[in-house]
């Protein structure tokens, strides 16, 4: 069935038909017709951000915490270019978002018109796909297809560029229907490979599940199947930064996060295992460390919906292309039908070894004296909030790693962090998106003061919509991770990693009408955190912490999993010239 309407109305209609309830955006000349339509309806709530980058990160936070695609609406030119960081972030972390951009009228494209940019050209490498719509009749079809592409297969950001004359003109609107495009990624894994993996599971003496964001993206059912498989096999499980929460942190088989700042036991298990089952992770360089020393004696299986992830950096023995949920279901079915076998004795011995590694207690720290250790701040935050209906966002840096280490995630979609791109300034707008998706939940953004300042303008957004997001800033007056690398790699020459003039965060909060809390004494910390939790509204929590704390464990650049640094004593001259060129 088709109906006649303007392009601008089609945009709103398509969003409604796709079940969108929230749009994050910022108006401008080239999207005014669409904003006019948004004004005249009550189905979709528009959240006015303070910068387009904030709109995209908010949409990412919304998408990651709800499992639904996030939607942004921005204008042409600078509106579109400001969205580029968010698009790249979503591409790296496989987050489904739809960004709608205005464009100058079709007859002015190419004339260097006011606020014109080659948006599809600029965003081609940082979207999964993008479209420039030149005819109103094609618009609704493209919009429906955009949702299909963003959410199927390996999810990702898409962009639809809509010239202003296309928004004004009349055309026929096509209803949402199942996509007929050729883009239909395969969900079921190859049964022969799955059988092979089951056979390997039955024989393995030192197995490990290494899981990633693909489990979360596959949906809550995939996390359930993973938990069932882990419980039934009694294999240890570790996860990437992106995959935290798919398996509960309180689960018996949980080893903690792996990788550059992962836990000792998790990395040692990865190095010594004889069967590595990668589920929805991608052998990122933060995970593998030195490639030629990566898990030298293991058979490697890799489940991924994206064929290009297979054999990209690590050669695998059992490649399975498919959706994590579908493949896990088949693995469980076949493994059960073959008699639920594992090499329980050998796995028991493996656990004995793992428990020895756990005794190293790699996250131990000492809270002594009158200065708050960042680890202590997060330990107290965890203790005081873990029973809440809680969502955690982070910025990027030391605080992000500490949050991953010291906070426990019991469920998927509760942890929003910029993994692949490492975008400072991600967490605050993301927390706004999360709070929009979960109005009654406790949403905390664990931040560093430098990252937080990168998108601090969004405090205006949080106030305007009364979103009670808690900004928990571990303030060390340093770019902590940069400082740590300069200490380890650049002869303690702290070039530009020191913020010389930071604002008074309490006054800053008050200037926006929000609540500010400052805490510098470990003895006051619990009360201050409770004050933050009890305040109904946005809170800026300025937690003054130890300025020179380093983040451990750490696999230095160019080193293998079993060459971790566990503390300050290990750090002298550890990174050689070859390692220092790596990031």
């Amino acid at each position, binding site marked *: 069935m088709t109906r006649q309407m303007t392009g601008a109305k089609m945009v709103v209609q398509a969003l409604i038909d796709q079940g969108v309830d929230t749009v994050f955006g910022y108006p401008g000349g080239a999207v005014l017709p669409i904003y006019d339509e948004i004004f005249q309806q009550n189905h979709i709530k528009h959240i006015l951000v303070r910068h387009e980058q904030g709109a995209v990160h908010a949409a990412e936070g919304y998408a990651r915490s709800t499992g639904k695609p996030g939607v942004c609406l921005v204008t042409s030119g600078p509106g579109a270019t400001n969205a580029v960081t968010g698009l790249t972030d979503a591409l790296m972390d496989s987050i489904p978002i739809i960004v709608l951009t205005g464009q100058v009228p079709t007859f002015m494209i190419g004339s260097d018109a006011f606020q014109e940019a080659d948006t*599809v050209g600029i965003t081609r490498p940082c979207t*999964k796909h993008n479209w420039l719509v030149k005819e109103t009749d094609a618009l609704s079809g493209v919009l429906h297809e955009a949702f299909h592409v963003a959410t199927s297969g*390996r999810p990702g950001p898409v962009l639809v560029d809509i010239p202003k004359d296309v928004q004004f003109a009349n055309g026929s609107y096509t209803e949402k229907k199942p996509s007929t495009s*050729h*883009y239909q990624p395969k969900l079921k894994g190859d049964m022969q490979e799955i059988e092979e993996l089951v056979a390997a599971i039955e024989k393995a003496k030192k197995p490990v599940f290494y899981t990633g964001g693909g489990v979360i993206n596959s949906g809550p059912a995939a996390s359930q199947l993973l938990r069932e498989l882990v419980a039934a096999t009694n294999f240890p499980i570790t996860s990437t930064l992106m995959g935290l929460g798919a398996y509960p942190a309180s689960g018996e088989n949980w080893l903690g996060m792996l990788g550059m700042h992962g836990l000792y036991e998790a990395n040692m298990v990865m190095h010594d295992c004889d069967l590595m089952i990668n589920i929805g992770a991608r052998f990122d360089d933060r995970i593998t460390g030195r490639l030629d020393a990566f898990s030298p004696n293991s058979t490697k299986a890799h489940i991924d919906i994206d064929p*290009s992830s297979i*054999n*990209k950096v690590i*050669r695998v023995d*059992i490649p399975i292309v498919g959706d994590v949920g579908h493949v896990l279901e088949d693995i469980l079915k076949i493994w059960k039908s073959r008699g639920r076998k594992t090499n329980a004795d050998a796995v028991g011995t493996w656990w004995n070894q793992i428990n020895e590694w756990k005794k190293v207690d790699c996250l131990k720290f000492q809270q002594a004296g009158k200065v708050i250790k960042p680890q202590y701040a997060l330990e107290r935050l965890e203790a005081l909030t873990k029973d809440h209906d809680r969502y955690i966002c982070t910025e990027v840096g030391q605080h992000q790693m500490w949050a991953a280490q010291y906070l426990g995630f019991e469920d998927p979609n509760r942890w929003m962090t910029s993994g692949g791109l490492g975008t400072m300034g991600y967490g605050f707008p993301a927390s706004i998106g999360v709070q929009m998706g979960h109005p009654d939940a406790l949403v905390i953004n664990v931040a560093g003061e430098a990252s937080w300042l990168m998108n601090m303008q969004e405090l205006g957004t949080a106030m305007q919509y009364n979103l009670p997001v808690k900004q928990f800033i571990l303030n060390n007056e340093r770019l902590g991770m940069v400082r740590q690398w300069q200490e380890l790699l650049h002869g303690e020459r702290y070039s530009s990693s020191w913020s010389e003039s930071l604002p008074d965060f309490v006054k800053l909060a008050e200037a926006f009408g929000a609540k500010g809390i400052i805490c510098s004494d470990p003895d006051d910390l619990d009360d201050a955190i409770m004050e933050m939790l009890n305040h109904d509204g946005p809170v800026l929590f300025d937690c003054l912490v130890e300025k020179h704390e380093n983040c451990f464990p750490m696999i230095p650049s160019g080193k293998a999993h079993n060459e971790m640094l566990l503390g300050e004593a290990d750090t002298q001259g550890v990174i050689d010239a070859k390692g220092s060129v790596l990031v």
Partner: protein
Amino acid sequence: MSALKIKKGASAKSAYNLRPTFSDVIERHTLAVLVENEPGVLARVIGLFAGRGYNIESLTVAEVDHQGHLSRITIVTNGTPQVIEQIKAQLGRIVTVHKVHDLTVEGPSVERELAMFKVTGQGEKRVEALRLADIFRANVVDSTLESFVFEITGAPEKIDAFADLMRPLGLADVARTGVAALSRGD
């Protein structure tokens, strides 16, 4: 896993792919990529090669199905087996790419390229150029008293050989289409 384990092939026609995935040997492959002929599709393909640091030896593109709006891009590229597999997988991810064929591993294929050579000269050199053109089955498509334009079709090696012969005889300009390739049989 046993070292002799035979993996299923990376191609549609071959049952086995015994090439070691992580070898250092540089291979030359001809890929045929069937794409939707939408604005920007070539930029997507080329941008992928540029952005990820892959090589393009030659590239030809034209719409081959006007009704279905499908274009065929023939790309000659080189790289280690792992890079070649990555290129194919990355091309396959592009939403508007319908099919990626690796003609080099999918069985025998034929490659042809068309080239035009402008050769200028007088006297014996001019006669020799014409004689060699005849041997190579090149056609004269334009002539003045002091120049020929030859048109030649063939495998890239044949065209290279012809170019080598024409150089001392007054080769002034060359235009090559790049490789078009099809698999043999059905």
